């Protein structure tokens, strides 16, 4: 994104990801005055949006006048580097990005897409929010969620373990347990 050259100010990046499809309501919410202002108030300097196949193009800012610098792109083969460089992640409710972010220990706000037909996605986000691993919001209430969230209250997520499932499968098939 060409931002790395101008490293004169300390960057605090917010990374937004909509996943493999599109989520215009989230991109639009990121484009509102309330959200931008809140990010600035919290001391974030850069906003990078992975907007997917969406048709809504957010307005870019270079980051002068103390405003949050805004950039966007459509897709990337992996978002790992973006997550790693971010101080706050705002993501769609897909389990892939949720767990990738939690594993890196980054503060996460999940925004549920209410336009999806089979909307089971809020189940996971709500459950993890109830366990204080992340914050859960809707596009229209994102500004408020950012205003009221307390990053100190987050509980680190301890990753699961696939071995018990593998043990069951091995036992069923008659393979020796390792």
């Amino acid at each position, binding site marked *: 994104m060409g931002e790395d050259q101008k490293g004169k100010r300390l960057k605090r990046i917010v990374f937004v990801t909509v996943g493999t499809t599109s989520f215009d309501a989230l991109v639009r919410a990121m484009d509102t005055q309330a959200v931008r202002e809140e990010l600035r108030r919290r001391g974030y300097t850069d906003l990078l949006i992975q907007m997917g196949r969406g048709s809504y193009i957010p307005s870019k800012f270079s980051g002068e006048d103390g405003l949050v610098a805004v950039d966007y792109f459509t897709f990337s083969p992996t978002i790992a580097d973006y997550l790693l460089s971010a101080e706050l992640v705002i993501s769609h409710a897909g389990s892939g990005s949720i767990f990738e972010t939690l594993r890196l220990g980054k503060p996460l706000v999940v925004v549920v897409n209410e336009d999806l037909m089979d909307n089971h996605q809020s*189940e996971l986000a709500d459950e993890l929010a109830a366990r204080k691993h992340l914050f859960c919001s809707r596009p229209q209430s994102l500004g408020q969620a950012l205003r009221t969230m307390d990053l100190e209250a987050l509980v680190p997520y301890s990753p699961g373990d696939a071995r018990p499932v593998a043990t069951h499968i091995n036992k069923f098939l008659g393979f020796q347990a390792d």
Partner: protein
Amino acid sequence: MERRNGGGGGFCSFPLLFAVAASFVVAVLARVLYVLYHTGRPLRSKKGVRPLRTLIILGSGGHTAEMLNLLAVLDKDKFNPRFYISAITDSMSLQKAEVYEESIAPQNTGTGDEMNPAHFMKIYRSREVGQSYITSVGTTIVAIIHALWLTFKIRPQVVICNGPGTCIPLCVCSFLLKVVGIRWSSIFYVESIARVKKLSLSGFLLYHLRMADQLFVQWPYLKTKHPRALYVGRLM
């Protein structure tokens, strides 16, 4: 005259035809019941010494990540060869599986394609995200025919899947191969971690049709609602 004779002849053989058809149906039903009876019962251990042809059904994004976490702890010499299938519209998942297989492959891979432990295939999807349930009927039929062809080619002994819609036609076809007697397989289904309170359509169908030998859920609440499911922790 001829038409009347033909008609009369058909009428005469009707009871015979009926008897043949009825006994056929009974035989098929008995076979289905036999297969269902053995579904969920562990295989005899001596059969499990040899490596098993494994069909791994990939879904997009989160599904693939979960599957790769499970594969990471399965013995690749036992689950060998491995056939990966993803939806035709989803090249990312297959790519991730390819990257994973490359990462575990021994450095000096032989040129013989037959010995290759990993194969990658694509299947027509029964339903795209956001597609209406009505048009999914037609696309599901196409997906089933394609699934029949693929399962017949692969003849899996183990099927591992975790939730994408593509897994239903493939599981049904694997089940059919069992009924017909072409290949016995064990079907393992791990419900996606995204399902906290309600099974996905795939999970719901496999649970209630009793087609999965073992069905894992990743949240305790789902286990309380579906007692035949297994809960042994999370993959992610």
